[in-house]
């Protein structure tokens, strides 16, 4: 299949970027989206040009490294799918495809399609952990957890921290990411000791990084490749309100 691509090219963090057009012939419809970009990059390298920089790692949809806003949608048009798991058969011969980086003040572009997502790491450092005694691992069934809670915690734990929620949010907010972590850790007994300090710390780190607030438009949940829902934002709000009332 033939494709017309428009890709955001930006030499470095301080450079002014722009959309650059490329044409690709003979793209296999069995190729993944990233493999299609690999083909483009091989051609660019052979022509002596700078290849397009983009993030990727496991290429099996679980690491959260790949990003790319494809035709205005983080991770592209297919629901519940990361960019690496998106295949070219989802597109048609002759299609024009626009590829941009995540856009958020807290995720500055490093080069081309690669953004700095360390703001998420700072949110995790501020509260995305539990205190555990050292020693041998306890038996898995030593602390009983209701099935419903375990399932909800596991659904929230499916978050791979890719940042598609921030990229989709018109306010550049990281609330879905934070909510997923607060739900994942706060639904289990192991996460209770830090429950209040976790939410206050994470929210402070989130705001300090320059993420915006939540207007409950739901763009984040629609873009999430792991289908995390707005209920985690509700839980985040609730935990925050209780913790802030106690801290005041």
């Amino acid at each position: 299949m033939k494709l017309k691509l428009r890709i955001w090219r930006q030499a470095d963090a301080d450079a002014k970027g722009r959309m650059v057009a490329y044409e690709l012939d003979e793209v296999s419809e069995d190729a993944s989206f990233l493999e299609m970009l690999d083909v483009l990059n091989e051609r660019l390298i052979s022509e002596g040009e700078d290849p397009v920089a983009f993030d990727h790692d496991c290429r099996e949809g679980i690491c959260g490294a790949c990003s790319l806003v494809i035709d205005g949608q983080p991770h592209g048009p297919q629901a519940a799918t990361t960019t690496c798991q998106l295949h070219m058969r989802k597109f048609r011969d002759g299609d024009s495809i626009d590829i941009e980086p995540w856009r958020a003040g807290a995720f500055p572009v490093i080069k081309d399609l690669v953004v700095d997502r360390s703001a998420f790491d700072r949110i995790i450092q501020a509260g995305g952990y539990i205190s555990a005694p050292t020693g041998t691992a306890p038996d898995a069934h030593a602390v009983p957890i209701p099935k419903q809670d375990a399932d909800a915690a596991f659904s929230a734990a499916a978050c791979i921290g890719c940042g598609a929620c921030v990229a989709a949010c018109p306010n550049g907010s990281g609330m879905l990411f934070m909510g997923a972590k607060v739900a994942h850790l706060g639904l289990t007994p192991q996460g209770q000791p830090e429950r209040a300090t976790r939410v206050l710390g994470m929210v402070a780190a989130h705001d300090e990084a320059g993420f915006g607030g939540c207007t409950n438009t739901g763009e984040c949940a629609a873009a999430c490749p792991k289908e995390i829902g707005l209920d985690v934002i509700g839980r985040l709000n609730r935990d925050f309100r209780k913790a802030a009332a106690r801290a005041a």
Partner: protein
Amino acid sequence: MSTDLQPRTAATAAKRAQAARKPWRSNIGLKIAMAVSGVLMVLFIIVHMAGNLHIFEGREEMNAYAAGLRSFGEPLLPHESLLWVLRIGLIASIAVHIWTGIVLSARAHHARPVKYAHRHKNRGESRNAYLNMRFGGIVIFLFVIWHLLDLTWRTVNPVKDVHDAYGAVVAAFDPSRWPVTVFYLLALTALGIHLRHGIWSAVQTIAGPDTKWRKRTQAIALAVAVIIVAGFAIVPLSVTFGLVS
């Protein structure tokens, strides 16, 4: 090239660090203040809408209701004490609602400094709410100013007698003043859209319901918005079409 996220200036970094120490100044803290002030105004607006329906009982009943609001609690309470409680509560709610709206909108603007070249249609649960709330809010605010000039202070209303609420309403929506009625109905539409999102969004911010209750809240918000819009719209429409005169 540095991969560290550098705050724009030392001043904004210091400001952010300061804000982080005060949880109620955070995005969620401001959103809770916005939600609580919004809920107070929704409660007021329901009472206001129900009170308006006295117009269908005729001039005397309507004006008696208006007078009753002023003399509520007399002689135990001073004249207009209920009205002043409502006025102070409303002014405080409006101030908090608008202030948090401006601060959060400004932060959201900084959080997305570069727009996407390819704009895709929104697909969220409450799509375009961020635009509807901000621009609809401005329309509602302008309407409230007009509304006070027209039916409270009577600056632009031909009926100057404060005690003749019935006459002022009939004069306000006279067929010859049709642009006023059209503006009123447009502002009501903006209010309905604002409430349909605002009510469930406030519940999400304050109470944080699970998925099942979020869906129920959204349905309740839509129902309340429709009832409020219908309850307010029926008065000017009845006057314009001669059912009340």
